[in-house]
């Protein structure tokens, strides 16, 4: 006697729904018992007592995007490496370890080249320095 196959995903669904329900229910219950006296000043965003100037949804610095960009490439890379790394031990036991190691090594080497390129070109630097022709700055 064992659980049927898809039943194993039950806890995941229960937990996700539980999280949603917990947040909604607590906020709903809280609505009944907590005070609610909004005022225009209270509902301002907090900026150390000053009146806020403009919206915060303004154009941000590009470097956050560059971080996300390099991240997603490495994220995808690790996602692709998970199954290969997972079978490395099995294949090593039957004497194919060298081959798989070489494949992994090549894969990592190509991506390390990408990282090295970004490093060399200064994409990894947070404080960007721009080299002008005159060598100033």
């Amino acid at each position, binding site marked *: 006697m064992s659980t049927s196959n898809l039943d194993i995903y039950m806890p995941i669904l229960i937990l996700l729904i539980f999280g949603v329900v917990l947040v909604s229910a607590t906020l709903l219950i809280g609505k009944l018992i907590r005070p609610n006296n909004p005022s225009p000043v209270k509902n301002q965003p907090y900026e150390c007592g000053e009146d806020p100037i403009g919206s915060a949804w303004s154009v941000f610095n590009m470097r956050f995007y560059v971080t996300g960009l390099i991240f997603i490439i490495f*994220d995808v890379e690790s996602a692709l490496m998970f199954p290969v790394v997972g079978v490395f031990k099995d294949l090593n036991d039957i004497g194919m370890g060298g081959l798989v190691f070489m494949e992994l090594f090549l894969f990592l080497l190509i991506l390390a080249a990408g990282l090295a390129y970004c490093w060399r070109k200064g994409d990894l630097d*947070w404080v960007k320095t721009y080299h002008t022709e005159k060598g100033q700055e």
Partner: protein
Amino acid sequence: MNQTVVSYLLQFEPIKKLVLSLSNLLGFNAISIVSFLIFLIVILIVVGFLATVGGLGTYAERKISADMQARIGPNRVGPYGILQFLADGAKMLLKEDIIPTQSDKFLFYVAPMLCIVGVFGTIAVIPFSSGFTILNFNVGLVYLIGISSLVGLGVFLGGYGSNSKWSMLGGMRGASQIISYEIPVVLSSLSIVLLSGGLSFSALIGAQGGWPHEWFIFHNPFTFIGFFILFIGSLAETNRAPFDLPEAESELVSGYHTEFSGMRFGFFALAEYIEVFVVCGLATALFLGGYNVPMHLGGDGLIGQVLQVGSFVSKTFLLYYIVIVTRWTLPRLRVDQLMTMCWKYLIPIAMFNLIMVGLWMWLFDGRSLFTLLFKSASVASGAGH
């Protein structure tokens, strides 16, 4: 393959009998209903336990910091102030819920929910013991990494939805920090997957032993470095000091949850403290032997399970303590230092580690350093005779 707590409990006669009698009563196979009930009960227990851990985490944080700074800390509610977290929770529930007029109401609701859902999703695969793991998913490690990335999105949307400059900066920093530090964590856990040859937590932990020399942290020099990379990355992923830039009190007021009040803030805090437990559990499971008990004490029975839970939870709490002490010991990094540390130190070292662990695996067939040393020592002593 996928073991669950239900399949463990079904070994016992009373539960089998319950299923059979219920099936006879209802006229169809009641296994799904019974497993649903068991899952619900176990999940309620585990979530209650982790919520208590999260609450006590806030208490421990304040008490330990008080000890380190020669203060007393919370001491009014209950003995030694241990019930302080309940008082805090009640206070948060009763606080007024302020939503700024300029903010995005939908995101204000979604952001704490994403944090809570992301953390609760990880609970399903935490390996408390060989039997009492809620779900021993055969890709548990990847699942944990994937579902916990919801937290980063919640942090960002919380900062964005507030429409306040401080929140915005905090959310931006938080998101870029969390995603950046995910890479070293994934790379160093990949090296452990390489050694154990499986993606489920039972395979990862089963490849280790009860004694410290059988743990993966002491398997070879590279995994020793890998542990620290994973631990640093975990600290950064949970926004703990010295990486608490998203909520840096002294520069960003309170970071991404500046505008959140009452229970919404409470959810962020709860998610953070539970996530610290989860990542400490991850480090324990990957590097510190997980739930293994030395000499397999207690066997496979119920006593053995309790000992395994004790082994896992005590190691995790030790790491939790280290996390808290670290917070009150080290100063905060600057943003550029943070990014430099991630991209120029941790990731290259982690990639190098992965390759070297692969090489070690290939050359020594996955034998640990201690096994090799013992063997050479016994060979030497055998030659001496």
